[in-house]
């Protein structure tokens, strides 16, 4: 069943916060879907990047539970193609920041098996820590 969504102060504040953190004019998004169709990791995502933009515009905080912002590799394919010159990756980054400020680490190094840790390239670990941990 489609969920009922109520636009209230909370949702408007969430939209404002993400706008401010990302520095992007999210209301400019035309919902053309170019970002989604060109995204190299789209198959792993639960919601599409354009859907993420839409949810932020609505102020729907459910977007915080999606994997999409974590999967964004900031490759900027969407940014160079967006007909409105929006930087979608900055919006994903803003969402990550909000989540990280709640001090919930996405990556727990203790839980990674030692054997796997030995195999992982160091640079990947550093990048993952930077992106997923505050």
């Amino acid at each position: 069943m489609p969920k009922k969504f109520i636009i209230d102060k909370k949702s408007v504040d969430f939209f404002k916060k993400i706008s401010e953190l990302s520095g992007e004019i999210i209301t400019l998004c035309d919902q053309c879907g170019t970002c989604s169709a060109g995204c190299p990791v789209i198959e792993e995502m639960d919601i599409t990047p354009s859907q993420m933009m839409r949810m932020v515009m609505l102020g729907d905080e459910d977007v915080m539970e999606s994997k999409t912002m974590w999967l964004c590799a900031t490759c900027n394919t969407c940014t160079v193609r967006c007909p409105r010159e929006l930087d979608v990756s900055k919006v994903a980054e803003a969402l990550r920041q909000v989540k990280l400020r709640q001090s919930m680490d996405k990556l727990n190094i203790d839980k990674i098996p030692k054997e796997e840790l030995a195999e992982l390239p160091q640079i990947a670990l550093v990048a993952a820590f930077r992106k997923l941990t505050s």
Partner: protein
Amino acid sequence: MKIGVYLCECGGNISKVIDLDTVNKFVGTKDSIGVARIHSNMCSGAGQKLIIDDIKKLGLDKIVVAACSPQFHEKTFRVAMEKAGLNPYVLEIVNFREHCSWPLKKQPKIATEKAKNLVNIGIEKVRLDYPLEKKMFKMENRVLVIGAGIAGIQASLDLADAGKDVTLVEKEASIGGKMALLSKTFPTEDCAACILSPKMADVEANPKIKLYTNTTITKTSGHRLHFDIEAEINPRFIIPKIDMDQCLSCKKCEEICPVSVPNEWEQGIMDRKAIYTPAALAIPFKYLIDKENCLHFKDDSCNKCAEICPQNAIDFTQKVEKLKFTVDNVIVATGFDLIDPNLKPVFGYDRYKNVVTGMEMERIVDHINENPPPREVGNKVAFIQCVGSRDKQIGNEYCSRVCCMYATKLASLLKMERPETDIYIFYTDIRAYGKGFEEYYKRAQEMGIKYIRGKVAEINEDPDTNNLVLKAEDTLSRKIIETEFDLVVLSTGLQLSKSSDTIIDSLKLSKSSDGFIKEAHLKYRPVDTLIEGVFVAGTAQGPKDIPDTVAQASASAARVIGTLAKEEFEIDPILAFVEENKCDGCKKCLPSCPKNAFQMNDKNKAVVDEALCVGCGACISSCPQDAIDLRGYSNSQIIASVEAALEFKEKDEYRVILFADDAATYRLADIVGVRKMFYDYNIYIIRVPSGSRITPKLMTHTFIKGADAIMIGDNVKKSSAFPWSKKMTLENIEVVNEKIKKSGIDGERIFYSEFSSGMLQEFITIANETVKTVKKYSKITKEKLNKLKEIF
């Protein structure tokens, strides 16, 4: 000299604030006053009659009317003076109401004092007024229409109907423009060729239309209503049918020609020969040789067409023919080009065989029933909308307006002919705004054409099958579509045709931010350009469909007919002139004039082309010899006004002279008055045509005569008839500021502002602040003024 001074009560609007008797007594103290009267309503018939009678009986030769703003009744009194046999330009209107009694409604004493000063300005200026003659320019009936697409064709036919002599110039070998290339037209699905060819034939047959095809405009010069045109007719290398009926279009040459090249008319889906006619419906239906590809021109290896021609009509020696003519008005109908699809490399237009433009699809659909068709379409076809438009990445933010409907049309036509074809249109928004468009869109949906809301991100070609894999998000279902298509049509947007650029430069037209030709006013003067006598029609002004193009073409023709109906064109005599004996031929005025109105005569003296001069006064400061002046706003007249405004200034008083441009600042002050809004009464407003009229010399004189500061108000650049004024004025101010500094006068004393009619509060704030600022400075002493004089 006998000056008549008339003080108007304006039914109490003036007399309830200003004590007119006191002012009248003051007028009596001035020299050469023939009569001074007070009247309840000067603008009434009785008031006008008073002036007429006085002129006749008392022999008045100058008139001052102190009443409302000149924008209301200057013309009224000029007409009255003409009736009495006096030149209408020896009149000064003193703005008692808007600039004095209304803003100073609550300070009647101050208002009366200020009124004395204001009438003093009028009297002193009118002394220097002299008769001016209205300039009339004769016009004939000659109109140039550039571009023979549907816009140029419609405009030419309308003009010819109205009896105008039309010269229609087309750069291509045939008229018809882009419309002639279309399969059918939306939303009615009329065959484009069927509804266009009769009009094309009418153009060729009409004796009032002189048609030049294969011809480019190389130069235009002249002005408002007299344009000298130069053009070049490119050779066809075929002797035309004149008396001898040489070329009979027997096709023998075309059949024997060994060269095959892509046919431009058919968008390259078919070939043509090097000797050819552009199309079966071409007008004029004449053969021509494509010099670029003809072997005779390449290496002299072929002469087959000339050998086979039974009429000896082929002439390889033809040269470019130069053409010169004069017209009174011009309509620019230079149309559009498709935006280059290669600007979007993700769609691979130059790499993938099966990616075509909308225009190519027009030709493909037009030939689809041929056996075999020149190009097959396959079973699965996709259209991609907004290619090149609505795209900030390539700098085109505008909507091209026709692509939604032409894609819908092409899809519908294809579906009708090949019902088994699966057709998808990838769009961001469907804009079905025109008459019958929404219904047409709905019909396409009924036919089973699938509209998918999502822009295609990229296309990849399967190198074996040449099929195209297209990636897009269906933003309504949030599914990522990755599917193979046989053919992809790019709905490319519209941009101004590249060939328009030389015409725009030559006629000094402007472009709007979307790159199309700028109209004089988007709402009220949509077919006029910023250059008088030049009009615009069709897609050269912006993307539009055929009905809008035809409507606009008829509108521009109507504007031309209206302009030329006057036969004579009257221009205000407020124009620059050169005192020949002072001019030393240095030519510095030439680049100073934004309208290029200066020329050197055979005696090497500068002369003003009065048909070009717009009376802004920007040239005056360029002349080192002070040889240039402006009629109606001469140096001596402005100095006299300034002197009169400061004549009765008390020692401890501060006065600021506001040079207000006539179009904006002066009228803004009027509106402030109408609203009875108070601003500092130490501001004295002097009307000028533009800020750039105030030369460094005039500014210096204003200080020497006793002003404490100068304000210069100009129209905001965006809506100004003299957009160059700001830059020039600021340069002039810079010159004076330096001299002021050197003479030891303290503080910034020249203030420049741009105003528009809505800036009431800004006007008041700036005026008040200026006086406040200046009052903080020390008084300008005589010694410092003497030093300023010296430096100057």
